């Protein structure tokens, strides 16, 4: 009953004391308990799940009618690379927008954010926990979605061929694509969580950012680097052919792209935490 005992008196010194990491971890678990349930089973989870699983399910027709020109899974590898690029650019992007922008925004719309703000949880801890909860949901949906997309692309030649492909380059490719999906969730997620704090209607900046990402292949080499998709595409195990109008830029080394994207996400999350510290509750204005 240590916490009750500690709550009987306050002092100014307490306010400036260092972080109690044990308490912060317990509080983060408390937030995660609430948020993971909402992110996995709430209304927005349905939209995200639809975005994650609808594209692979659309490949049912392909399963029964693969192109005659393709003799086996190896021939379909470039096809999958293109499909994944589209999946990442639309389904994963929009799914992350739905899940992460709601981390704060849905609480504001529900008028229930104050319940968190009226607990002794540090806003930084709250922000990170909300982010992790949304990341769990997004990573789960889009990892499975990516794996399903992979399966649907390569299964028309039978499970035997699929097994042989996985025993060769297939498994490595699959793991890389799943990793890319998780990395995409990490990068987009941090940004969309911040959008959810900053904008009353985060869909608008989300769509603008989508346009920016969509146009990425056509941007000058320098501007290309101001995006998430550029770093992710640099990590694709199989290059994707782009339009003849696309501008070429040297792909990033994985040793720069991965830490760079993680660092970018951490910085955006730090900005979101700072923003959370300065947030006020007046729902009428939101």
């Amino acid at each position, binding site marked *: 009953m240590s916490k009750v005992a500690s709550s*009987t008196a306050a002092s100014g010194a307490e*306010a400036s004391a260092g972080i109690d990491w044990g308490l912060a971890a*317990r*509080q983060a678990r408390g937030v995660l308990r609430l948020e993971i349930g909402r992110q996995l089973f709430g209304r927005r989870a349905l939209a995200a799940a639809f975005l994650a699983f609808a594209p692979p399910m659309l490949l049912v027709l392909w399963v029964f009618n693969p192109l005659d020109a393709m003799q086996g899974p190896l021939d379909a590898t470039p096809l999958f690379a293109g499909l994944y690029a589209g999946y990442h650019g639309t389904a994963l992007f929009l799914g992350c927008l739905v899940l992460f922008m709601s981390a704060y925004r849905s609480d504001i719309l*529900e008028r229930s954010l104050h319940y968190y703000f009226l607990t002794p949880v540090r806003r930084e801890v709250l922000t990170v926990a909300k982010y992790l909860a949304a990341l769990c949901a997004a990573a789960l949906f889009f990892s499975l979605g990516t794996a399903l997309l992979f399966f649907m692309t390569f299964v028309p030649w039978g499970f035997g061929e699929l097994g042989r492909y996985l025993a060769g380059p297939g498994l490595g490719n699959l793991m890389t694509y799943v990793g890319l999906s998780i990395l995409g969730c990490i990068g987009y997620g941090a940004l969309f969580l911040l959008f959810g704090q900053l904008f009353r209607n985060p869909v608008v900046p989300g769509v603008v950012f989508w346009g920016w990402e969509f146009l990425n292949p056509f941007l000058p080499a320098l501007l290309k680097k101001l995006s998430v998709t550029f770093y992710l595409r640099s990590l694709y195990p199989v290059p994707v052919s782009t339009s003849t109008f696309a501008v070429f830029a040297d792909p990033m080394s994985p040793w720069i792209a991965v830490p760079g994207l993680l660092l970018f996400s951490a910085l955006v999350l730090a900005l979101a935490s700072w923003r959370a510290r300065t947030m006020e*509750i007046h729902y009428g204005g939101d």
Partner: protein
Amino acid sequence: MTAHESVHDAGPSLDDGDLIVFDNVSKFYGEVLGVNRVTLRLEPGITGLVGPNGSGKSTLMNLMTGLLRPSEGSVQILGVSSDVPHALFDHVGYLTQFDAFPERMTGRSFIDSFLRVHGFGAADARRLTEAALERVNLVDAADRRMGGYSKGMRQRIRLAQAIAHEPGVLVLDEPLNGLDPMARSEVIEIFKGFADEGRHVVISSHVLHEVDMVSDRVVLLTGGYVVAEGEVSGVRSEVEERPIQVLVRCSRARFVAARLFEAEAVVQVELHDDEGGLLASTRKAPRFYDALSRLVLEHDIDVETVTVADSDVRAVYAYLIESEGDVQ
């Protein structure tokens, strides 16, 4: 020192670590004034913030609890600045006016979950949850989803959530709204119990009578300014001379009206056209509420709403403001 001594009786033994201190606090929403230059030192016990709608009561409470930040000045609760929430909310519980909940939760999971966010372990959270539910008499409905709760039940579950972690300072924004007479008296006993333990209880209301029932000192607000503070007794007699109007929606309204007259609890009653309620004028609010409570208990009357009619409250409040010099 008892919990009910006046703010003006502050003894030398209390320092800022025991008080709620507003130091020249102003809050502006753009060019709109929220509160202006509020300086207060509140001792343990029950303090009522009284003022008409829009007078700045909720703003003051939101500033006190860090949901808003002052444009100028500072607020300290028991020596902790209100802009350090992680240090503040071990000691503060706040029942806001926001009547909303996280979706699809039961009453029990709502309280338990936010105790876990406080940092309590599972066993402590469970024990505190049960204690809070018992305190607000909501154990039987605790496993129902809050979306199906009545207004009174929602108010009580939010109160349970505010007191569950046993705070030293309890801030309550219009806590009696939506409660039937029985629930009111139960909730008021909770407030008194808290104050008797030497804790702070700050209650807002736009009805002076409600504050009068539970506290003996008030802070009067209008237009964002503190216009008076002190003991309620100094203004009570003047208020009692003027009738207040109470709106009651209930079954058997005609019968209730007749019995209220018999009990000399009202000076005038208007029945609603649908006979599903009445508007009563009373000069003796305590007698009125006692009589109404007895009627409800003894004659199985279903009460939907009991609320003070706002226009009359404004009139009473205007009267108080005019009497400012006498109050202080």
